[in-house]
């Protein structure tokens, strides 16, 4: 049954562009990008117990580096993409070193402050970022000479990267290192006593999570062909965190489902009302108060209860 569901999902995802119109194909591509972003944040929040409100830094930084290099230096994608990933990861090494001086709320405040500093810099450093105008006129890469300008080709490109990203992140969580990470979340002192380098485990996770955030940032800038300081704002971080928590933090499927919910809400509701931020605020409050565990664990629990009741 489980195998069947997977095959069904694979067929559905692969066949989507044949059935759905361009709008839905593009929407699904965006969901994929948001899913990688939320899943990477989930490594920190869900498995590491480190609530970060600065994850937008990685999406925005990678996007800005890649955009700046191709616009102002005229370099090709084959060099901008790896440099963007590398540069973002290096900044994450430094940010992680600072933020992990604290845990819990202190960590959250420091990550928020650091990412707000990047956001403010993106607004004000006009000679590099073009400030509020954003960097426009970007292109999508052409891997193996295939143009990604069509909705369908970009969809498959994003799908492939998303599958790789999710599988690799799942392997990370399932590995002994992932087990150690969960240990540092639940019992940091015991883990320390057992000889695990708690701080190092957290730091590596921070950097690793930032790397995947950067990957989603590259896809983000390829999709939009445009980058604006808003991508670095607290709203972006909050959207991802909302996705993680709404879906269920510390589960593999949770952030993906959560990101999809957030993206669908954003797209559909924005068509009717302008007030996406306000709606997101309300969803935040409602989820935290009424469904703190998230949708995926909530549905699982309901399914278990339902399944148990059936035989009676």
């Amino acid at each position, binding site marked *: 049954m489980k195998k069947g569901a997977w095959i069904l999902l694979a067929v559905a995802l692969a066949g989507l562009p044949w059935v759905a119109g361009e709008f839905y194909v593009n929407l699904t591509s965006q969901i994929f990008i948001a899913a990688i972003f939320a899943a990477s944040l989930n490594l920190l929040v869900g498995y590491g117990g480190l*609530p970060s*409100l600065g994850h937008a830094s990685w999406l925005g930084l990678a996007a800005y580096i890649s955009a700046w290099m191709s616009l102002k230096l005229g370099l090709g994608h084959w060099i901008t993409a790896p440099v963007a990933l590398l540069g973002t990861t290096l900044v994450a090494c430094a940010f992680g070193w*600072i933020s992990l*001086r*604290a845990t*819990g*709320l*202190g960590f*959250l*405040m*420091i990550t*928020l*402050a*650091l990412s*707000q*500093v*990047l956001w*403010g*810099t993106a607004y*004000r*450093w*006009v*000679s*590099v970022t073009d400030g509020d105008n954003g960097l426009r006129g970007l292109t999508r890469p052409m891997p193996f000479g295939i143009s990604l300008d069509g909705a369908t080709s970009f969809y498959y490109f994003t799908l492939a990267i998303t599958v790789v990203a999710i599988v690799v992140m799942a392997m990370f969580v399932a590995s002994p290192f992932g087990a150690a990470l969960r240990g540092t979340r639940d019992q940091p002192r015991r883990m320390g006593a057992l000889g695990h380098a708690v701080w190092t485990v957290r730091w590596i996770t921070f950097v690793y999570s930032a790397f995947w955030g950067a990957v989603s940032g590259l896809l983000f800038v390829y999709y939009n062909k445009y980058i604006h300081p808003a991508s670095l*704002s*607290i*709203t972006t971080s*909050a959207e991802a*965190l909302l996705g993680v*928590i709404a879906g269920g933090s510390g589960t593999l499927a949770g952030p993906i489902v959560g990101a999809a919910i957030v993206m669908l809400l954003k797209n559909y509701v924005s068509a009717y009302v302008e*007030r996406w*931020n*306000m709606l*997101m*605020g*309300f*969803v*935040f*409050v409602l989820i*935290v*108060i009424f469904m*703190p565990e998230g949708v995926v664990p909530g549905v699982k629990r309901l399914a278990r209860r339902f399944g148990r009741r059936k035989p009676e």
Partner: protein
Amino acid sequence: MQYWIIQSLNSLALGGLLFLLAAGFSLIFGLMRIANLTHGSLYMLGAYAGATLLAPRPQSLKVFQYFPQVPSIWIAALLGGAFLAVLGGLLERLILRKLAGNALGQVLVTLGISFIVADFCLIVWGGDPISIPTPEALRQPLQVAGLSFPAYRLVVVAIAVVTAAVLYLMMERTRLGAMIRAGVDDMQMARAVGIPVSKLFTTVFCIGAALAGAGGVIGGPIMSAYPGLDADMLPLALIVVILGGIGSLLGAFVGSFLIGAIYTFGTALVPDLAYVILFLPMIVVIAFRPRGLFGRQTV
């Protein structure tokens, strides 16, 4: 020379406003372990309240029809502070109280509410900045030794210093202050010796919100009220608290003027990178003194 005097006063005035904001944030965090991300929104609401009560009529926005113009910025500051104290009390009692013990949940709720407030302000007051007039009596700069000092900024600094002194006396010399200090140092013991922690929480939250709101009104003639004011002020307050130490009034005071100076002079000297310069003190402090300059708890 004149330029540097103006910049220094600007930095002091910003420091004073930051203190009004950060003192409340720091006390709330220190006592209740709530990182109140609505604090920037409370400040912005204060600024908009001040704009509504003070802006010269007639104005095209509908909201101005419902509120009369008040004659003085000080009355407006009191009203704004009172309004936000009520709002803060409701927020604490009705929402944050429900999530007691769930620190992450509380942060997320305050984050959600800050989004709601930001959009609410956009609906009510529109997207254009609303400037708040400087009080008539303080428009003329003060002339000393051939140099002129903007009077209103001096007054803002004085207000911040007086507020700091009053808060200090309250913390050190009153029963309420002793209870707050006890709560900051050891919440469980404070409960055990019979301190009414629940009332204390609401009181501190109201004080913090009132300070932020009054700060928003008083800062109005300098910064005006505009969408995004919350996102501009909150990170500064966060950095102040990280720098000064959580729950420490002295830390908030020193940190505010430090950050005010760094930010103002940074903007004047390297306008592009003013925000990056904000990093430096934070990195230094976190690296060598993770609990902040005057804090007793680790962040």
